[in-house]
């Protein structure tokens, strides 16, 4: 177990390292000159040149990369070109909003997906099953900005139940979290269904039925209890799915998280922020995958530890 754990952690670190390399190479494709952006439009060529030296941008790429990595290890993500604030500070200020959004999204996807999957498995092959599966497919096929705008239109503008935009109490969180939850709910309905179908095929289910337990009782007690664990153990993987939606959803709802920060930075080519958010999001995904890898074998002994 310890070896398995150690191996997974080393792999995770290597992936993060790889991501720093790719991000670094990527942003160096930027045709815009960062030194010029820092200096401002009216700066003289001399000023731009001295800023270039100050930022170390005149060094060869490998040197720049290792300098970047050295700072990274000390928790220094660089400074925003435009806002002149430490990127780590900007991200830390925005992170709680994104984490709240993710927590809300996980709540909604489980709320939508698990019951839908259970009902579909219990009614396997019947109309309810087919309807739920098409709905689940629609959930994963729906563009998130359209879902967000639709929820905004119906529940905020027409019905007035929720605030339209921005950040505040729990009521502000509902619609953006639900937007992400619709996508995740579709995945969960499908996974929960197939997990339940597996369980309901087992011998002990037939035994329980033979001993006179009602169908509903068998599904709810024996089926759900065994079918739900392997699914919930994989919640960590959701972070990867949500990180993509975060940019769009935060933009649509004016939610002040790291997705909005990234979007604002991309529009102004504020490279250190783009790199910082990409890295933080990737680390989140890697940690999520790691947690799922570690938790799953405990919960589901059929998954072999390699």
């Amino acid at each position, binding site marked *: 177990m310890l070896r398995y754990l150690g191996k997974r952690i080393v792999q995770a670190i290597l992936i993060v390292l790889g991501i720093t390399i790719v991000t670094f190479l990527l942003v160096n494709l930027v045709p815009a000159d960062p030194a010029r952006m820092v200096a401002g439009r009216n700066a003289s060529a001399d000023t731009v040149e001295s800023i270039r030296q100050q930022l170390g941008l005149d060094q060869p790429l490998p040197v720049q990369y290792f300098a970047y990595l050295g700072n990274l290890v000390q928790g220094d993500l660089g400074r925003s070109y435009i806002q002149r604030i430490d990127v780590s500070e900007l991200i830390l200020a925005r992170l709680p909003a994104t984490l709240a959004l993710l927590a809300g999204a996980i709540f909604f996807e489980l709320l939508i997906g698990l019951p839908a999957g259970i009902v579909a498995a219990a009614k396997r092959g019947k109309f309810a099953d087919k309807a739920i599966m098409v709905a689940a*497919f629609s959930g994963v096929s729906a*563009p998130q900005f*359209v879902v967000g*705008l639709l929820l905004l239109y119906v529940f905020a503008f027409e019905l007035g139940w929720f605030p339209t935009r921005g950040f505040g109490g729990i009521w502000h969180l509902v619609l953006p979290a639900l937007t992400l939850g619709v996508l995740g709910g579709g995945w969960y309905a499908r996974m929960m269904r197939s997990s339940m179908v597996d369980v309901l095929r087992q011998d002990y289910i037939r035994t329980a039925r033979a001993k006179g337990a009602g169908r509903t009782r068998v599904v709810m007690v024996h089926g759900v209890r065994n079918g739900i664990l392997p699914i919930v153990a994989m919640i960590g993987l959701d972070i*990867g799915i949500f990180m993509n939606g975060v940019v769009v959803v935060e933009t649509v709802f004016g939610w002040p998280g790291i997705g909005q920060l990234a979007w604002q930075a*991309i529009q102004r080519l504020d490279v250190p922020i783009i790199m910082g958010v*990409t890295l933080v999001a990737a680390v989140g995904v*890697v940690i999520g995958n790691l947690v799922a890898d570690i938790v799953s074998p405990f919960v589901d002994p059929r998954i072999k530890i390699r």
Partner: protein
Amino acid sequence: MPALESTSVRDGWRRFSRNRAALFGLLVIVVTVVVALGADVLAPYDYQEQHFEGLTLEGAPLPPGVPFLIGTDTLGRDLLSRMMHGARTSLIIGVVANGIAVLLGALLGTLAGYVRGWLGTVIMRFTDLMMAFPVLILAIALAAIIGPSLWIVALVIAAVNWVQVARVVYTETTSLSEREFIEATRNLGASNARILFAHIIPHLIPTILVWATLGIATTVLLEATLSFLGIGVQPPMPSWGNIIQESVSYFTTAPWLVFIPGAAILLLALSFNLVGDALRDVLDPTQRGRT
């Protein structure tokens, strides 16, 4: 998994056609293709013409009705005609971007699975890395950096979408190349090229077909998202995503401008997902992943 033959095609179609959701998806795709190809003839108006009678006296867009069946946009242009030309954009990107992604993914996956060694390891570790990458942030950053255009959007999507295909094809190739018939062919003196092209690749085609179909759904969604953010397909070329982007600030007063294209995106992506899923059941009942 059997290679495609005429009897298995007929048998497959029989099983596919029992799946009504997939038939519905196929119908939607066929209609979209016809509309996209014939947009110049089928569209009731020029998609760029700003009709004087296409706006109310106050200058607001018209809701669905006559003569503009699904309404007009904020410049008084016919929404239906714009949607029909937008279908063309969506399909071009769907086919081109996803085609490049599938080719690249299949090539790298086969290579890694067949050659293995250090090259295989490098390729597969790179896909691991790409899986952890926040794809949309990457795509947005790339599109913003290089500057938006139809072809750049297609390339960006391709750069992001090949990973999944590469992983599936890799797994398939490794298990194939350990099978007895490949071993037997090798013992008979067949060259690597012959084994690859005559024996391995034909067996990969069903898998690639499934992922190519599912991939178009992802591509359509990604294009719409990039265009919605204003870094995808640029006006005057209409795309379903940029029609929404142009009218999103009026969506409380002119909701049809957002929700009709939105529904079209959903329907097309859903259709490719339904067809891809049914294809997977038909072509390969053993393989069910998380898509």
